[in-house]
Every structure is written in C-alpha cells, then in structure tokens.
C-alpha cells in the first residue's frame, strides 16, 4: 500500500468515525432528555452511564488496553488523556449547570460553539502539528450557525 493510499484510508476512517460520533451524541440527546425527565437527575444518569459504558469498553477492548499498559506509554500521553477526561467532565458539568440557570434555547447554541474553541486552541497548542485553513474555519462557522438554527427549530 502506498503512502497516498494509507493517507486516504485514514481520512476515510477519520471522517466516518466523526460522523458516527455525531450520530451517537445526537441520538443520546434525544434519549437523555427522556431519562432526565422520567428516570434520574442528569448528574446521576451521567455518572452511572459512564460507569457502565466504561465496563463495556473494557470488556470489548481489554486486550488492547492491557497491551498499551504493558508497553507503558510516556507520562505525557497519560497526562493529556487524563486532562481530556477532566475537560470533558468539566464541559458536561457546566452544560447541566447552565441548563439549570437558562433555557435550552440559549444554552444549546452557546455550548454548540465548542468547535470554535477547539479551532482556537488548535492554533495555540497544536501549531506545527495541525493546519487550520480558511475553509476549515468557514465550515466550522457554518456548522455552528446550522446547530443554532436547528435548536431554534426544535425548541
């Protein structure tokens, strides 16, 4: 396989995974609303979903996880994925707190600006690793505007 073919395959997997993740999160928003209204407070639901989801993840991929642990990746690797976990939890917690203080029609579009923050942080922290083009920037703005419009339409 040539380098060009490998790059094309990686891009295809990457875009497919991103669309798959968006579909999961989108479906989850619909289910989450039902759970928060009928079953448990959002923080409790999120905690137990996380525990059970992590058990499922470990059950399926334990050989890969054990192998990575034996190889002992650098401390920098552990540190940054741990920080990613903290930042995700920070995001979810403030999302719920915001919903307690303001209507969803305001909270959802504002929280939907996260790709813009990701782009700004990419420019700061990943300079030299990733390239942010003007097309990426315009595409990101279009997605944010579209999300705001859909939120208004649903609410």
């Amino acid at each position: 396989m040539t380098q060009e073919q490998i790059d094309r395959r990686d891009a295809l997997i990457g875009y497919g995974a991103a669309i798959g993740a968006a579909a999961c999160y989108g479906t989850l928003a619909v289910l989450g609303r039902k759970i928060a209204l009928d079953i448990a407070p959002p923080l409790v639901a999120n905690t137990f979903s996380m525990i059970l989801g992590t058990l499922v993840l470990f059950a399926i991929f334990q050989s890969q996880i054990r192998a990575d642990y034996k190889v002992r990746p650098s401390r920098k690797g552990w540190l940054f994925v741990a920080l990613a976990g903290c930042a995700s939890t920070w995001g979810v917690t403030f999302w719920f707190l915001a919903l307690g203080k303001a209507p969803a029609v305001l909270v959802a579009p504002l929280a939907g600006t996260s790709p813009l923050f990701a782009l700004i942080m990419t420019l700061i922290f990943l300079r030299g690793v990733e390239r942010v083009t003007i097309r990426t920037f315009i595409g990101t703005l279009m997605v944010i505007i579209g999300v705001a419009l859909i939120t208004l339409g649903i609410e």
Partner: protein
Amino acid sequence: MLGAAMALTAAMGFGAAAVFARIGLQYMRPTTGAFVSLLIGIAITLTLALVFHFDDIFALSGIAFVWFLITGTLNFPLGRLLNFTSVNKIGVSRSAPIIGAAPLFSGILGVTLGGESMNLFIFTGTLVIIGGIAMIVGQK
C-alpha cells in the same frame, strides 16, 4: 447572563478535551485513551453525584440501570471511542466541527421518529450544516 457564561464555559471544556486528546493520542491507542479519560471522568462525576444526589442514587429503580446501560454504551464505547479515533486520524480542526453537528442527528430523529414537524429553521439549519461539513471534508 450566568447561564450563558456557564454554557460558554462548557463549550470551552469540550473544545479543550479534543485538543488534549489529540496530544495524548500520539502516545497510545484511542481505546486506551478513551478508557483512561473515562476513569478520570468517573472519579469526578461520582464524587459530585454522591455529594449532591446521595438519596437519589439509593432510590434508583432496576429499569433505570437498563437505560444507563443503553446510554452508556451509546455514549462511551461508541461515541467517545469514535470521537477519539477521528481526532487521531484527521485531527481536531476537522473532527471537532463534524462531531459538533450532533444536533443535526437529533433533529433528524425528532422529525422521522419523534413526530416533530419539519420547519424552516430545521430545514435551513440542516442545509447549512451539510454545506459546512462538505467544505471541511472537500479540502485536500
């Protein structure tokens, strides 16, 4: 005003998570990265849940755990793993906007299965999101 500030703080958290994951995943597989990030998340949310909802936890019914298993599987082995895989393969700048389009799928589900009606906002928003993703995916 406070709610808006909190929503923007949430957005910052989600944005930072993608960038931190991108750096960390240079050293390990997305599966291990997702697992470690979830362990940290559990430690934080379990503490908060025990502090603020102690009584609610012990009042949970059996069926609640079936729902948690469904949403947990959808969110973490699937959602987060796919998220980390895309960050690893195409980078933050391309994956974050596509993953940020999740409300598009909520809207599609709402209209097709939830009995919600398609209106001008949802229709225009869908077209704008698809256009934005096409711009990102279409570049070399």
